[in-house]
């Protein structure tokens, strides 16, 4: 058994509205959507039109550059809307779900007798390939690349994070089958990161055909990128794949039954949620179905698909993002605060010991979306380093991105990072610098330089 990797840097943001595992209800999503912007750098061709009847597993889109990458319908029903944004870029394909679900049968998957390319093409045909993502760049894994390893993070350390143990509960067999399938999709080892003390599920603790790594420490210890950095960092020219545990379950069901089954458990969290709970629903479920429209009386609520650090804003009539399994609702913070910089009128989380909160580690906060200050040039040093458990000099990396020096970005470790790993840096930044946006701009530049 590997020894525990202890991360001393990081910060747990404890917020009100943690989803209650005692309350878990199954809901029927009236509409379900696929949101192509979730697939970075991919350009898709739409294979259906409004009015098309689809089944679970019917291809909706295929990648223009890699046609074998297909995104399939998570439910059977009728395509009711195709939303496009600027320059007709696909934003969302919405399906009205049938009461009785019809599945396309893809035939049995024989893990032992099928070779790598047969297995890959089976997963691709079923439209499950997009569940597998790659570093660098956080885009869909390339159909014929050979990663040096596949990573699964078995715990989530983010704000109001759902318990991964609970997300895969009842699907232990499928989870194991999914890990097995991942191990057969390439020659590379599968690494599973679990929490040294908090992981309880036997499916994680006793997972087979994987190398298990124990982690301990505050957020972002659960980020797959942080775990990669400590298990085996990505070097130039290499690719690592990663899959979320809920998506491992979906892959596992496919390996077991030869059909797609996109159901997943979703955490509904945040202080503006009337009843923080879990719901058993489906990938891309409508926000309406997950929340039942239940928000506390306020008008100004921000609904986030994902967590408060890295999620994306969605409208109440929108849908959960493709890779998300958490919905968070917090109040907007669009109010002037008298001398807010000096005498905060309500407690707020921060690593700074100039606030009481810097000392009270276990206090739970009600937060809002106020920036608590204006953007400035870099002044304070050493803050990012406190919350980034990586051997990377964050300020130097950010500056190299700002002056677009590709060689220096490579040297400083751009291939090892993603904006989600820097989300806490952005949160703690005194100068309110848009750290995540800068990191993504850097990755965009590298992508254009090396992949496009």
């Amino acid at each position, binding site marked *: 058994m590997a020894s525990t990797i202890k991360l001393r840097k990081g910060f747990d943001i404890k917020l009100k509205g943690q989803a209650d595992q005692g309350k878990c209800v199954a809901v029927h999503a009236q509409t379900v959507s696929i949101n192509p912007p979730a697939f970075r750098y991919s350009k898709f061709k739409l294979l259906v039109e409004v009015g098309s009847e689809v089944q679970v597993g019917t291809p909706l889109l295929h990648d223009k550059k890699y046609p074998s990458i297909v995104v399939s319908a998570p439910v059977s029903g009728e395509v009711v809307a195709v939303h496009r944004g600027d320059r007709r870029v696909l934003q969302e394909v919405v399906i009205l779900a049938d009461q009785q679900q019809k599945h396309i049968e893809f035939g049995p998957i024989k893990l032992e007798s099928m070779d790598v390319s047969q297995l890959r093409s089976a997963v691709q045909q079923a439209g499950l390939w997009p569940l597998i993502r790659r570093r660098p760049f956080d885009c869909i894994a390339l159909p014929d690349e050979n990663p040096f390893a596949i990573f699964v993070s078995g715990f989530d350390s983010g704000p109001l994070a759902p318990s991964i143990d609970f997300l895969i509960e009842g699907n232990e067999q499928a989870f194991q089958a999914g890990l097995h399938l991942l191990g057969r999709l390439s020659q590379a080892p599968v690494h599973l990161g679990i929490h040294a003390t908090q992981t309880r599920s036997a499916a994680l603790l006793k997972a087979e055909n994987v190398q298990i790594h124990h982690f301990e420490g505050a957020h972002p210890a659960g980020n797959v990128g942080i775990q990669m950095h400590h298990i085996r*960092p990505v*070097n*130039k020219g290499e690719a690592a794949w990663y899959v979320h545990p809920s998506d491992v379950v979906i892959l596992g069901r496919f390996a077991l039954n030869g059909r797609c089954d996109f159901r997943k458990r979703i955490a509904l969290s945040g202080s503006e949620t009337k009843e923080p709970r879990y719901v058993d629903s489906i990938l891309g479920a409508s926000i309406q179905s997950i929340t039942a429209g239940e928000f506390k009386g306020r008008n100004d609520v*921000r609904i*986030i698909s994902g967590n*408060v*650090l890295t*999620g994306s*804003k969605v409208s109440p009539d929108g849908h959960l993002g493709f890779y998300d399994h958490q919905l968070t609702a*917090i109040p*907007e*913070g*669009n109010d*002037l*605060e*008298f*001398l*807010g*910089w*000096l005498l*905060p009128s309500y407690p*707020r*989380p*921060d690593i*700074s*010991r*100039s*606030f009481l909160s*810097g000392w009270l580690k276990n206090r739970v906060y009600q*937060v809002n*979306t*106020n*920036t*608590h*200050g*204006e953007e*400035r*040039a870099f*002044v*304070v*040093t*050493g803050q990012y380093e406190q919350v980034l458990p990586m*051997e990377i*000099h964050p300020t*130097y990396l950010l500056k190299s991105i700002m002056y677009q020096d590709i060689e220096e970005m490579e*040297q*400083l*470790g751009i291939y090892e990072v993603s*904006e989600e790993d820097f*989300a806490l840096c*952005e*949160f*703690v*930044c*005194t*100068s*309110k610098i*848009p*750290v*995540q946006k800068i990191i993504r701009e850097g990755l965009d530049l590298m992508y254009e330089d090396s992949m496009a």
Partner: protein
Amino acid sequence: MMKFLKDRIIEWRPQFEKGGKYERFHTVFDGFSTFLFTPDTVTTQGSHIRGGMDLKRTMFFVILAMLPAFVFGMFNVGHQHYLSTGAFTAPGDGILEKFIFGALKVIPIVVVAYGVGLGIEFFIASRKGHSINEGYLVSGLLIPLVMPPDIPLWMVGLASAFAVIFAKEVFGGTGMNVLNVALTARVFLFFAYPTFMSGDMVWIAEKPDTYSGATALANSIQGNPGYCTTDMFLGLIPGSIGETSKLAILIGAAFLIFTGIGSASVMISVLLGAGIMGLIFNAIALNEFMSLPFWNHYLMGGLMFGAVFMATDPVTAAQTERGKWIYGLLIGMMAVMIRVFNPAYPEGIMLAILFGNVMAPLIDHFVVQSNIKKRLARA
């Protein structure tokens, strides 16, 4: 009242925005309104929530940390004056008179330093369409604290203007400067008007000519600071306004470290570097100053003040954690070396910090290079 102000700001704000009637005064309006009310801006990208810390709070806490040294400095300016005239010789006598005398000397210096510096900042910010940066709130108080009490006000104004324009704004404002702004003001006066910044005459305000006003550092060339250790620690000695009381400075240091705003690494390493150099000199002991027990360096001159309030300036210090230690050690060692080797510049810490500021990017460069080498070795 609060609601009234809030409503007015919301009501007036559009007129100061682009295309509004008072667009030209946007910077000034923004500066004052954001000081009164933290703006209602919400996150639009990246993290949906942000921590409570901003630059205003950071700078204000540094000012709080300087207050003990500032208040004691006012008292000591009066104390030294009345000591030299013989009116109140015991520290406890005539406290009110001493404070009033000190305040009359010190407050005008503060007003001039802030007035000139902020004036230039506001002007440049509105020309460039930037918002006012809070950095000068600290510099504006640091400048008076490193001045001799009898400094002519026009010199304070000139030095503040020089420092803001040539140390900061030409580099792009707060966050972009290479040299510490307040130290630049001081070094400017030191070389432009040396008779007002050194010697035995300037450290006690309005002293009779017959009274010796030599500082502990100047005395130490003969191997003895000339003041008792307690007085040097408490600050009852002549010197720049804010530097004399080591106790007050240590209170500030404790506050900065406690709140996590000042870098303990820099403070400790500067003092460590000074101690190491002092011990080396003690071992060599070629002259009287070298033989002076090393700990005296902590109690004399601005070493402690520089270590706590100036070397720690995050913009001009080294930025990597390892770099901070090297930077601090370098400053501490240089400071004592300059003091002992070059009596023409008794205040070694000023030049040592400026030297450290110049070296900081190079130090960081080597720290970052070692990280890069590690990464390349792995690939």
